């Protein structure tokens, strides 16, 4: 109980309070302690990356075992995972092999996945933007104006789309975003305080 609950709560409390005090007050001893805590956090984050890597291997090894070798996606992931780690660790991140993987596999596949949005969002917009009622009509008109106002051809076809887009983005959008951000920030403060004082049990692995 002490190791699972009380000790993590004490650590979170001390670390949280120290960093908060260091942000607001310039006390050298607290500043130094807070800087040490932040550096520790960076080290722990690196270990978390390693933990994530081990977890990925476990999950996909289990997938392959369960499917008796027919799960080619997990197999492909593990093979590329091992190759990339080998190249990165033993040949270095500035090696030609690493750059080849990055430039000719990592970047093109990442961009390809992202570029599919143009197709999916396009068809989704075509099917969803229907003026079935007033709200849908407002959404449709706003969406079309912003789509046109954001590209050069829009300014040529419908010049008014540019100032209208700027107005939508800087007035309507910012008003809504501010509300969301302020509400989110207040919620974030509340949750942070609950974690620091140990009331947020889920943060410590509890229910």
């Amino acid at each position, binding site marked *: 109980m002490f190791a699972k609950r009380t000790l993590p709560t004490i650590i979170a409390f001390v670390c949280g309070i120290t960093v908060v005090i260091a942000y607001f007050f310039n006390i050298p001893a607290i500043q130094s302690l807070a800087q040490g805590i932040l550096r520790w956090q960076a080290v722990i984050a690196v270990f978390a990356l390693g933990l994530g890597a081990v977890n990925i291997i476990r999950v996909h090894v289990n997938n392959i075992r369960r499917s008796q070798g027919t799960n080619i996606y997990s197999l492909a992931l593990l093979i590329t995972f091992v190759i990339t780690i080998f190249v990165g660790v033993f040949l270095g991140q500035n090696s030609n092999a690493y750059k080849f993987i990055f430039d000719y596999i990592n970047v093109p596949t990442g961009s390809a996945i992202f570029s599919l949005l143009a197709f999916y969002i396009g068809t989704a917009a075509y099917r969803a933007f229907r003026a*079935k009622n007033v709200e849908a009509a407002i959404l449709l008109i706003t969406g079309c104006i912003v789509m046109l106002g954001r590209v050069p051809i829009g300014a040529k076809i419908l010049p008014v789309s540019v100032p209208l887009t700027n107005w939508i983005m800087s007035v309507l959008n910012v008003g809504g975003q501010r509300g969301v951000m302020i509400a989110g920030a207040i919620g974030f403060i509340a949750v942070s305080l609950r974690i620091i004082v140990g009331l947020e049990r889920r943060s410590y692995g509890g229910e």
Partner: protein
Amino acid sequence: MDIFEKLQDLDRRVFYLLMALAIAIPIIRPIGLPIDVTDPVKRTYDFVESLPNGSIVVMGFDYEPGDEIDLSPIAQAILHQLARKNIRVVALASFPAGPTFAEECLAVLEEYGYEYGKDYINLGHYAGGEPTLAAFANNPTSIFVRDWLGNDVASLPLMQEISSMKDFSMAMTLNDGPTGGTGTHEWVRQAVMAHNVPLIMGVTGVLAASNETYVQSGQCKGILAGLRAAAEYEQLIDRKGIGTTGMDAQSMAHMLIVIFVVLGNIGMFLSKKPSGRPGPGSPSRPAVPGGEGK
């Protein structure tokens, strides 16, 4: 099925084909649509111009491969402007892919005779997001002992001029969102609020909406959103690149979507099904006179 009903339900493969053509053709044969420079981009350019010559800026390459096409052109355009003012650059990245993008973009500086370690540095990747950025802001060498090339960071001449975030004349984040890396909100907190260092952002198009708030509040001195901003910046620095060529394709893609949306709505308004399906509008108030029960 009449033509108007068909307009409402065109085969998505037709759309995919047309979209592929709309993007590919302008890239192969650019149309050269004129690009007007908008106020947010001009403001950002003017702000960078106002920085003291020879000062040092920090740039966060906080994006992954999927967003490279939006953000690398912005980074390169800004770097050209910084180099013309002899401003030195320290780069770091909160995503593992970031240092490689930084390396590719920082190559721009070599055109201007910049020397690694003296005029620019690629510090590499840091894990841990905002707390690590906070630690970097307080003491950069406490987080980066070795740079991306494996050099001892403390021994590099440029880093000897930097003891905290306050030594930078500007911070910039090229950012594709907070998932997995350091987001724009974190940069506002750690650069602007904690150290009062002016911040500019290069973000993907979709992030423009949420970050516009910081521009209006004055916490962000300028925002460059998506490929469009890169294209405009290329106009300002008078150096055309991928941003400019990409805008024709983006124009055509947006245009195609708008055309399809309009066609779908025309089809919906004009279609009349024998089954008596109401036209547009709520069931109690059919928008097509006599549409109900026909």
